[in-house]
């Protein structure tokens, strides 16, 4: 216990000192002129040396986007975003980061060691710019080689466009079409980079893939586009985002993630999102408008989304599964924590199309401070989805009397043989539990962290080991200052 409390504190101190590593130096960068028009789109496409079809696709998206209105149905309040007052292409702004682990507080390293967090993980936690550290190239090559041997393609989407155009052309926009929604359409027009994964037939990916391991593209832009294809009988686990505290200004982040699982394939997608949430007065923070969708195209395919959302001033995100193949399975495990002035409107959509499709939704929302936390989800059983099953569990926990927790599920059932169950509860932290912990010498804050971790356990245990440890810490950090 002592060790983890220490870590919580140390990590906390990183999160707290947001200005310590926070100022930004513009390094030489190629920047498109401020604003957004067709020329910006052409500029981005030309920079990336893209084929004609992709430019056309971007332009179609852009032209559509100009006529679209920003959605307003969510329970989110934020000042209007001026889309013309932004740069849509710029070499990523880099932060003044420590050059190597030598510059990190040795005490911090000691704690990591105690916890057994691997070296590279430590770098991430401490905010070390990875490509500046020791032999990253060789590290990257080792992994790449191992993956290549298995025939797995894992690269940035820009590289994929150059090297595997047939795959990109076949699958890009096939799950989230360019016309999907305001933010996805904007992303389609101006996406700059992102990850591409292709796992060939029958291959089980030997390691967890993550944006982090794809070192040279670690610093991706505001408009990422991720495309993951699991061919027949394959398996891949993908980790997204990192727990390193990002110290960004109020900034728009509109990513699109598309997953495709063919017959008997399985994709496990885990996210720990800890973008800068803004300060305790609600100033700054990331606006996170993300479209994530997976298509279980094949028989017996499976897609699971696990997310721990603790960051961002605004989260608008509904990772979804289209359960098309017979016997396909969709899962959604989510923890969303909001504190101070954070707002989250998140949930999932499970669209049951094929026979015997099954879905599970477990959502845990925790709201503290003056935050608003909304679960919004859709379970749709189409007439052809005989014997479909869904079970949904949404629990909300309120800490303090100034926050809000909301649940907005939509359940549409059009097949007699389907079985759909939805449960939701809202309550506050149990005073007895709190008393019990504090009576045993834990501080109020640690007690809350412990209780909340227990509340979230069902989701935390779905995370890959490496993430689970950090996610647990984050739960505590995010709620800092919410009691007492």
């Amino acid at each position: 216990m002592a060790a983890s409390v220490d870590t919580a504190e140390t990590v906390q101190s990183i999160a707290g000192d947001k200005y310590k590593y926070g100022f930004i130096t513009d390094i030489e960068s190629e920047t498109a002129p401020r604003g957004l028009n067709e020329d910006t789109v052409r500029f981005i496409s030309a920079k990336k040396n893209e084929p004609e079809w992709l430019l056309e696709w971007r332009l179609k998206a852009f032209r559509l986007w100009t006529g679209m209105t920003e959605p307003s149905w969510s329970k989110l309040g934020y000042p209007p975003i001026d889309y013309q007052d932004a740069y849509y292409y710029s070499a990523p702004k880099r932060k003044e980061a420590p050059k190597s682990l030598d510059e990190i507080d040795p005490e911090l390293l000691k704690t990591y060691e105690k916890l057994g967090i691997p070296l590279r993980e430590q770098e991430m936690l401490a905010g070390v710019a990875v490509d500046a550290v020791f032999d990253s190239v060789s590290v990257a090559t080792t992994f790449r080689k191992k993956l290549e041997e298995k025939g797995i393609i894992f690269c940035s989407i820009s590289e994929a466009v150059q090297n595997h155009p047939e795959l990109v052309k076949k699958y890009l926009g096939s799950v989230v079409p360019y016309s999907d929604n305001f933010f996805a359409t904007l992303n389609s027009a101006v996406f700059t980079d992102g990850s591409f994964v292709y796992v060939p037939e029958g291959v089980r990916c030997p390691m967890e893939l993550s944006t982090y391991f794809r070192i040279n593209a670690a610093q991706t832009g505001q408009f990422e586009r991720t495309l993951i294809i699991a061919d027949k009988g394959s398996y891949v686990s993908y980790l997204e985002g990192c727990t390193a505290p990002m110290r960004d200004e109020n900034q728009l982040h509109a990513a699109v993630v598309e997953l495709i699982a063919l017959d008997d394939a399985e994709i496990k997608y885990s996210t720990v999102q800890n973008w800068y949430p803004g300060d305790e007065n609600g100033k700054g923070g990331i606006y996170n408008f993300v479209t994530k969708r997976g298509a279980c195209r094949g028989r017996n395919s499976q897609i699971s989304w696990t997310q721990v959302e603790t960051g961002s001033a605004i989260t608008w995100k509904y990772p979804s599964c289209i359960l098309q193949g017979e016997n396909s399975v969709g899962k959604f495990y989510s923890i969303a924590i909001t504190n101070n002035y954070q707002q989250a409107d998140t949930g999932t959509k499970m669209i049951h199309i094929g026979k015997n499709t099954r879905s599970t939704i477990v959502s845990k929302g925790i709201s503290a401070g003056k935050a608003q936390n909304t679960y919004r989800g859709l379970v749709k059983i189409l007439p052809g989805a005989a014997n479909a099953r869904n079970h949904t569990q949404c629990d909300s926990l309120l800490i303090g009397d100034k926050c809000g927790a909301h649940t907005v599920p939509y359940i549409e059932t059009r097949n007699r043989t389907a079985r759909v169950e939805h449960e939701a509860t809202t309550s506050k932290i149990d005073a007895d539990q709190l008393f019990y912990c504090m009576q045993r010498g834990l501080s109020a804050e640690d007690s809350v962290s412990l209780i909340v971790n227990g509340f979230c356990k069902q989701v935390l245990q779905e995370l890959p080991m490496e993430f689970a440890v950090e996610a647990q810490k984050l739960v505590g950090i995010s709620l800092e200052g919410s009691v007492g």
Partner: protein
Amino acid sequence: MASETTTGLPYADRFAAIAATLPGQSVPWLRELREDSFARFAQLGLPTPRVEQWKYTNLHPLTKAGFEPAVVNGQGRGQIKALQPLSSLLPAEEPAHRLVFVNGLFRRDLSEIGALPEGVRLDGLGEALASEAESLAPMLGRAVRSGDNALLALNTALMADGCILRIGRGVSIDAPIHLVFVGAAEETALAFHPRNLIVAERDSRAVIFESHVASNGGVYWSNPVTEVTVEDGAEIQHYKFQDESLDAFHIALTEVEIGERGRYHSFVMTSGGRLSRQEIRAVLDGKGAECRLTGGYLARGKQHVDNTTEIVHAKPHTTSKEVYKGVLDEQGRAVFQGKIIVEKDAQKSDGHQLNRTLLLSDRAEIDTKPELEIYADDVKCSHGATAGELEESALFYLRARGIDETAARRMLIEAFLGDLGEDLASATVKAALQRRVSNWLAAI
């Protein structure tokens, strides 16, 4: 959608001409209220599925039926001669204070108000609007909280009649008050907008039965609005059976305000109507206030049944309990939207909600949206929803004991709906519910 200025209802475009004949036109504030309400309706138009609250219920068929007002120059269109043939349709036979409305108009000749305790006023609204509008001013709109509700605005603009019930301080009415709304279809499709005003003063008590029946089938549209005020310590039990014609439209709104320690229990059984919606909005506006909403729905053919409820816990220590259950056959479609709001200071609120639906056919559809909106932390709120077919193993159990499939199915459906009755205080209503269910099941 504010931009759509067409009302979608041709007869509403002749509002000025119709309004001139409505009761109370000589009273300035009432005339103004009608005009403002109509302007509001014209601005809003009929809600489309793009309006979140109407996502699953499309009112487009209303625009196609070519409705005419059921009241012309104070005279009702649509005739029924006597109540006799209807008695079989009414859910309750026990002695009651009975008011009968035909196409929205109060028919004293068919009603039996009987002797009421002192301090109770029970009467038709139309005459009162015409002769003593002033006394109604504090009652009209008292319980209404919803702001931009187009159909409420239309009702306020065109209300011609309805019921006034005012129960004085501490008065308890023993016999139930029975409001019978009869839809009598004519060759022209008729529309009517009854308005009921119910006020239970402090510590008073009453039981209200509300029946909506059809004299001879056919197309008509009933758009009733009922305002219920339950003052401190008062208690209202409100039972509604909606057995409209299977070609009729029934879009009802009930707005309830409940004071300290006040209790309101509503039961709504829907089995009639081609397209129907019952919206209940209840505000728990005093410490210790309690609200229970129970509902059942049975739909087959192409019936569409919408139950939309909103319970607002506005004060601390308030309780709500809500259970809606239904069975859908053929192409029956049901909508359940249940929202519980706990306001900022309504600590120690307790709100529970359950919606369960049985689907008997592959073409039936249920759309459920249970919603929690919570701004206080010391609360216990939950909702649950299920949808599916009859339990295979339960069916097998009965079949194994020699019960044929049809009987077994009926038995299980009856059991599924059975617990709706458990919460009902009135034996008459329980029996009426059972009759509805077994009649409906007989046709499976």
